[in-house]
């Protein structure tokens, strides 16, 4: 049993877009007897369906007698409840009550409909639309220089924040990924300068020569972009000029559970087989899972409950921003927007997309 902690306020993540399923999963359900897909986001059960060419995410509970809409059927005009046949449009409005065809249906006869959109062949949902948030970037997707392959999504018994931290953690490579991404004999890690701008954390990892693992893995300079709260992209720059990217978005399913959606993208050998790239990632994930599922609690606890060190730099910057966002969300959407747009520049990098206010904040 996970002990609940009050360090982060999960309610804050309702303002953000999260992936809930792949388009392929949604269409497979539709092809199998016009079924919608049942998903869970931040503990809320949703029925996802394509209705009239538009993706809809409805609260998974018929307002009439509380049957899950996800056991209903998708029709051209909407999603029909399995129990008494009530039909709901993509906007959540009830369009038809079959037992009372002659009655007009009041405006408030509706199920909650959340913002839903398709991007990167994934279905994204935002539970609360009162803040202007954007679907996170996925730089290689749609870039003709890259071949992007979608990995199989995976569900882990940990929070999305823990999953994300594992993805940006460097000091575990020599232990968890000894011989795969690291080497036990070389446990030192650089302490990155972490910049906060455009609703992202950005930092670079430049491996020292002694971190190279001939015959094991090529440690390449890596650019990290982390879209708060739970999406990350790593871009690797190889000595021959080729690049690859690894993108992951951890969807906060419910307390202590997340589902990760991911792509592996490469400029080299674009027409070559994809399987070795997927297999390598599968190996890395199989090494991570045993330690991640053993973290207790699965949620990030208050700072006093874990013993951090300076090499946890990225984790500390990440936790601090999540904490600030949590606190801001307790106030209102405006406070959250201000916190989201806050800028902290530590490095001497310059960014093409530096917001105008950032140059001033960089001083000192």
């Amino acid at each position, binding site marked *: 049993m996970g002990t609940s902690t009050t360090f982060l306020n999960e309610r804050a993540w309702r303002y953000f877009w999260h992936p809930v399923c792949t388009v392929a999963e949604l269409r497979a359900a539709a092809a199998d007897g016009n079924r919608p897909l049942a998903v869970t986001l931040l503990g809320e059960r949703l029925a996802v369906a394509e209705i009239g060419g538009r993706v809809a995410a409805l609260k998974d509970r018929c307002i009439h007698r509380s049957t899950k809409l996800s056991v209903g059927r998708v029709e051209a005009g909407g999603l029909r409840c399995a129990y008494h046949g009530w039909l709901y449009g993509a906007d959540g409005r009830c369009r038809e009550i079959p037992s009372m065809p002659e009655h007009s249906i009041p405006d408030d006869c509706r199920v909650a409909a959340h913002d839903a959109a398709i991007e990167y062949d994934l279905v994204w949902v935002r539970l609360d639309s009162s803040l202007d948030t954007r679907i996170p970037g996925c730089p290689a997707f749609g870039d003709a220089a890259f071949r992007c392959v979608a990995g199989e999504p995976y569900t882990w018994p940990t929070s999305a924040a823990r999953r994300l931290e594992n993805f940006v953690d460097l000091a575990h490579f020599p232990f968890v990924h000894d011989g795969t991404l690291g080497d036990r004999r070389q446990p030192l890690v650089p302490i990155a300068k972490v910049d906060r701008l455009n609703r992202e954390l950005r930092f670079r990892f430049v491996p020292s020569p002694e971190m190279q693992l001939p015959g094991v893995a090529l440690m390449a300079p890596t650019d990290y972009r982390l879209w708060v709260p739970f999406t990350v992209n790593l871009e690797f720059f190889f000595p021959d000029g080729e690049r690859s990217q690894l993108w992951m978005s951890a969807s906060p399913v419910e307390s202590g559970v997340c589902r990760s959606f991911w792509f592996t993208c490469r400029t080299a050998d674009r027409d070559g087989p994809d399987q070795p790239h997927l297999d390598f990632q599968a190996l890395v994930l199989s090494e991570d899972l045993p330690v991640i599922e053993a973290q207790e609690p699965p949620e990030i606890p*208050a*700072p*006093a409950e874990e*013993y*951090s*060190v*300076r090499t*946890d*730099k990225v984790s*500390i*910057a990440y*936790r*601090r921003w999540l*904490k600030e966002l949590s606190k801001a969300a307790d106030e209102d959407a405006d406070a959250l927007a*201000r916190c989201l747009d*806050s800028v*902290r520049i*530590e490095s001497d990098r310059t960014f093409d997309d530096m917001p105008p206010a950032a140059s*001033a*904040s960089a*001083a*000192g």
Partner: protein
Amino acid sequence: MGRVVYHVVGQRAQLRDGDVTCVVVEGREIALYRIGGEFFATDDACTHAHGSLCEGYLEGEEIECPLHAGRFNVRTGEATCSPATEALATYEVRSDGEDVLIGIPA
């Protein structure tokens, strides 16, 4: 008391209320805080295990170290919560128009 020299470290508007940032003055790493329009400055390094306080959590007048959650009063430098026991050095902060200046012993 020895002589103190004031150094401009930035502009008032650069730091939001309730926030903390890092500045380097004369080779010293200093955490600069803004609380209710007032500015405070302490050493950046926690006296416990050298955590960077400007990466920590500011709650009222207390800064919590991000490493082990030791706390200090930023006005006095006093350690207010274990594992921090030793006080932090504090620095005087002045404003000159929009400029923020920190006083460093010469």
